[in-house]
């Protein structure tokens, strides 16, 4: 290495290194700006195109051949029902497996296989879940292209999200809480249900919201199960006038959901339909942003409030 004696030279070298520091800092801000600007462009583009279409009628009309009278009634009702099925099936299963893996699982081969599996499931492309649902739910089990099949497909998709969130929330509870419960003679399940679950509920809830936000926007698996894209009717109502007042007919009804409706409009050549797509996209983005934002806020509050 060349020896540096002269003070001036040392200053020059330091100056050069500092310049690199500055250049990189600008590059970092620039890269972040690209992400921010893209988001702004996306949002502004949809807002300009979609805003004029957003009216009360847009939410209360069925899709139609005439773009100016088309709406998203069947789409948002479908999304609500599908999400209901997804939440009801994914939440208990996800929390259950999270608890098992974190609290009950012995350290053995089976546990390891399950754990590797959960990480692998999280990386499986969503369209593959669609193929599974097509083969298994639609044909093998005979659910058809129904709300039930779609809801279950999305439930499988978000299961890893709920499992991971549950595990992380439970793991962050200090072991002293468990020891305290056991010292008082509580059984394992009593410890879990009376202490661990309530204390980790905010974290689990965050995971559930993020999972559902993802499921709301998922398009590929629902296309794959062959869900019709033109649905101008509502599924049968879950509430009935006569006994037993509740009906599950809607589970087997054909349906459409928000992202499918949007995809349908995007892929049409007429510009008027693309304005509808922008409006539907706006609704969809606002919904997912609101859900994700809520999750982030919950997590932020949790970090601030809980100090074990």
């Amino acid at each position: 290495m060349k020896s540096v004696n002269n003070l001036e030279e040392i200053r020059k070298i330091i100056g050069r290194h500092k310049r690199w520091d500055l250049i990189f800092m600008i590059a970092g801000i620039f890269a972040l700006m690209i992400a921010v600007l893209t988001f702004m462009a996306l949002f502004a583009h949809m807002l300009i195109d979609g805003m004029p279409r957003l009216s009360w009628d847009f939410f209360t009309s069925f899709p139609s051949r005439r773009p100016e009278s088309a709406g998203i009634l069947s789409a948002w009702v479908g999304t609500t029902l599908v999400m209901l099925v997804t939440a009801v099936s994914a939440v208990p299963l996800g929390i259950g497996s999270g608890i098992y893996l974190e609290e009950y699982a012995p350290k053995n081969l089976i546990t390891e296989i399950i754990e590797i599996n959960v990480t692998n499931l999280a990386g499986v492309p969503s369209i593959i879940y669609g193929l599974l649902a097509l083969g298994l739910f639609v044909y093998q089990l005979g659910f058809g292209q129904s709300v039930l099949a779609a809801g279950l497909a999305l439930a499988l998709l978000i299961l890893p999200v709920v499992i991971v969130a549950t595990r992380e929330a439970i793991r962050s509870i200090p072991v002293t809480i468990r020891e305290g419960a056991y010292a008082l003679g509580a059984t394992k399940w009593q410890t879990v249900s009376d202490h661990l679950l309530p204390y980790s509920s905010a974290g689990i809830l965050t995971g559930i919201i993020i999972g559902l936000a993802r499921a709301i926007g998922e398009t590929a698996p629902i296309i794959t199960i062959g869900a019709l894209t033109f649905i101008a009717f509502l599924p049968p109502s879950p509430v009935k006038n006569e006994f037993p007042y509740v009906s599950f007919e809607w589970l087997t009804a054909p349906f459409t959901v928000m992202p499918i409706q949007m995809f349908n409009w995007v892929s049409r050549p007429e510009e008027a339909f693309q304005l509808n797509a922008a409006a539907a996209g706006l609704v969809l983005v606002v919904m997912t942003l609101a859900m994700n934002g809520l999750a982030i806020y919950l997590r932020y509050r949790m970090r601030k409030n809980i100090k074990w």
Partner: protein
Amino acid sequence: MAEESHNKIAHAGKLGYSFRRNLHERFIEALLFLSAALSVAIMLAIIVMLVKESIVFFQHVSIWEFLTDTQWTPLFDDAHYGILPLIAGTIVSSFIALLVALPLGTIIAIYLSEFAPFTVREIAKPFLELLGGIPTVVYGYFALLFVTPLLQMIFPELPGFSLLSAGLVMGIMIIPYVSSMTEDAMRAVPMNLREGSYAMGATRFQTAIRVVMPAAFSGIAAAYILGISRAVGETMVVAIAAGMQPNLTWNPMEPAATITAYIVQVSLGDLPHGSIGYQTIFAAGLTLLILTLVFNIIGHVLRKRYREIY
């Protein structure tokens, strides 16, 4: 005295070994185990379903033809079943996406982990997370109706559907994914390595590039590989913005279909259950699953490694 011993027995009954309580506990444990084991069942179901339909497909079409034929036209009268055009489309669109996502994601990660002041990080991280939560169909819309016209101003010969615009948008879409994992890996590097570097008079940039990044290497590699897997499996952006015509090309300025886009295209029509067209999407799905599983497994092995070192 008698009363006392009576109390003792009552306590023993409540706190000692109780058959019913034990049974209850066992029952719950079994229930929890079943829900955990379900994830394995799902994985098996995916594999069985894809393999089962693919076997029928491969009785019709030889694996050799599947891997070497240069045309993919299963729905035409003159049917060809060569997966190459779909693989080429997948590689080109993923390559463009990674060209965008890996450098930008890495720079953002280094900036957030080593340079950014606390407040910037506190704002930027949730923002990136929100960006990652936007539905892919919306990104597809954006690629088709905003990015493509924009690119057409620069390249007037660009067609309405192209791998280029789909790939670019896909790249921006996976930036948050890559950057958050890369940042996690870099933050897992212990502080004393950085302090040592600073004590030697290194600048932040030198510390980041020469100390933190090598130390976080396996974690960063994992982030990249999981990013690749994400790009390969992405569906809606390419289905909307790249067109759905299988086309054996390496030119990003042309429209082409990826594996995922082909599955979407078939699913949009109504193919009878059990037909060869129906089986093709399972064969394509199996190819996709194998590709992504390989990437995922490598990624997770690498991720585990960096967690173990520190």
